[in-house]
């Protein structure tokens, strides 16, 4: 029971993370292959904002140490991730398209990881941070604390979901889907594609930062090993399996994929050498990604086809749309 309760906040947090990725990749078509960099960055900032000043007896060195109260740390962390996102997207989004952009995001993420990992005076380097305060009141028992924290995560999940769903239905939402399907057309209609893409990228990174903050408060410690770049692809798997471009699909994918992959191995008997189960999990994620893309390219919950209001009759052949499903016009 305690175990099930401990999974609830994780599901909510992954929901937030996948929603942010879906905004960037699924809806706008910006291939951000270093999404988890922004999650980790937000987590770091939230950790150092809520920790007290670094003293020599804790054995950690880090910046800030401002002891800011809970909801504020989260928003500031989100803002910090958004700022980093704006910086990177300014370099990456200006003139680059799909392949190049994806590779540049990976390169930029690698640079961030290298700097953060090796400059121990920033965030204690590869040793990570611990003793991060949780927002749950201390007088509750452990289950109560976990349920309280679940409530907090759920609240943020609902806020993020409603905000992103409203954004998707707004005129801006139409513009970003237009950019995804054909940015040249959007440009021809007089939109500044670069600015819209950069804005969306920053908003997605804000969401990533908020999710990362909740993740670090959940664990009450920052272990760099659990924030490594491959985590991004677990998020991609969740988004694709749930349904690309569909926020409900993101929720579904987030509820099933990362938790299933992280936790199902817990019930398997240990066999083979240490790390074998871990390795087979990687194989399973990879094969599942390929199989889903092959036989169910739109995921479990499809993105609804756009409605053309100028045509009275329903279109004879609904054109395939979606970030991963359309045909290659090149």
């Amino acid at each position, binding site marked *: 029971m305690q175990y099930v309760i401990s999974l609830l906040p994780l599901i909510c947090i992954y929901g937030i993370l996948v929603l942010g990725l879906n905004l960037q990749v699924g809806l706008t078509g910006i291939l951000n292959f270093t999404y988890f960099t922004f999650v980790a960055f937000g987590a770091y900032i939230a950790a150092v904002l809520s920790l007290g000043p670094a003293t020599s007896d804790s054995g950690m060195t880090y910046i800030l140490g401002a002891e800011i109260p809970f909801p504020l740390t989260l928003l500031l962390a989100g803002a910090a991730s958004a700022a980093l996102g704006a910086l990177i997207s300014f*370099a990456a989004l200006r003139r680059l398209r799909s392949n190049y952009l994806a590779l540049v995001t990976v390169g930029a993420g690698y*640079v961030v990881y290298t700097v953060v990992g090796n400059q121990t005076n920033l965030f204690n380097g590869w040793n990570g941070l611990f003793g991060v305060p949780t927002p749950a009141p201390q007088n509750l028992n452990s289950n109560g604390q976990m349920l309280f924290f679940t409530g907090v995560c759920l609240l943020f999940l609902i806020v993020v979901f409603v905000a992103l769903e409203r954004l998707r239905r707004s005129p801006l939402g139409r513009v970003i889907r237009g950019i995804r399907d054909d940015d040249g057309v959007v440009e021809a209609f007089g939109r500044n594609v670069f600015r819209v893409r950069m804005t969306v990228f920053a908003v997605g990174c804000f969401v990533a930062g908020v999710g990362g903050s909740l993740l670090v408060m959940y664990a009450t410690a920052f272990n760099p090993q659990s924030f490594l770049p491959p985590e991004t692809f677990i998020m991609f798997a969740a988004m694709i399996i749930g349904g690309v471009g569909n926020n409900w699909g993101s929720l579904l994918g987030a509820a099933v994929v990362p938790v299933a992959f992280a936790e199902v191995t817990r019930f398997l008997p240990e066999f083979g050498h240490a790390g074998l189960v871990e*390795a087979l999990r990687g194989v399973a994620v990879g094969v599942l*990604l390929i199989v889903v893309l092959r036989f169910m390219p739109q995921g479990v919950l499809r993105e609804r086809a756009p409605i053309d209001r100028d045509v009275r009759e329903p279109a004879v052949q609904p054109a395939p749309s979606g970030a991963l499903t359309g045909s290659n016009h090149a």
Partner: protein
Amino acid sequence: MHQIMLSIGFGLVTASILALAGAGLSLQFSITNFVNFAYGDYATLGAYLVLLGIHWHLPFLGAAIASGIAMALLSLLLYRVTFRSFVRRRSQNVTMLIVSIGVSLAVQGVISAIWGSGFQTYQLTAQAPLSIGPFQLTTQQLAVIGVAVVGLLGLHILLRYTTIGKSMRAMSDDKDLAEVSGINTARITDITWLISGLLVGVAGIVLAVNTASFTPLLGNQFLFLIFAGVILGGIGKIYGAMLGALIIGVCTEVAAGFVGSAYADAAAFLLMILILLVRPSGLFTAKGRS
């Protein structure tokens, strides 16, 4: 001055490995038109297959050759099993990218499952470095450069002077035009995967020789250096990839010597990003949208 010449010498070794893998990646991209994120893991697999050969009491050279051939075949097999059905459905580039990530995760997982995630080594005897001009390189490092030169020269001859090579270049220029001109594009695509698999397998082996000990993440980290080199040269430009590899290789080793080895790869990526800001489709391509 002495220090920088030493760094450039090591840079040449790294560049040779990058050039081998980069030429393979570029060749595959120019024919199939998608980026293969599993490519680094092919290199890792090549390095690990040598261990298998050594386990079966083959001499190192024999194991290396067998592994190179096996990687050529495996590369073709993986294309047939995974990528081809997506290509036939004319899937978007994005889809192909993510499919290749799936392949990458799977290959990496298989390697970890078979050999474990710990460090492996070929247990080659360590050698004292020889002084050649201003450089100090071991025989193994010289062999790495030699393998790269032979490999790239072979690729050059293939592309310039054989019918297969000419068909490849025709396909990379315009696939449809090549097809109506009577080129068997399916066969050329298969051959491309064979050759790029061979190149990356060999690159993985020489990389493992050069780094002495390796883990299943060997190629994963190396992949992005390969990409950096390929991007610098312009994606799909095989000769550009060779030159890009030279720049990136020297850049990493010089940065390792002067800033610290932890920053070697980061320096290469920074260089790549800076160059892309100025020339968004690489150094050796016509100006325009990528």
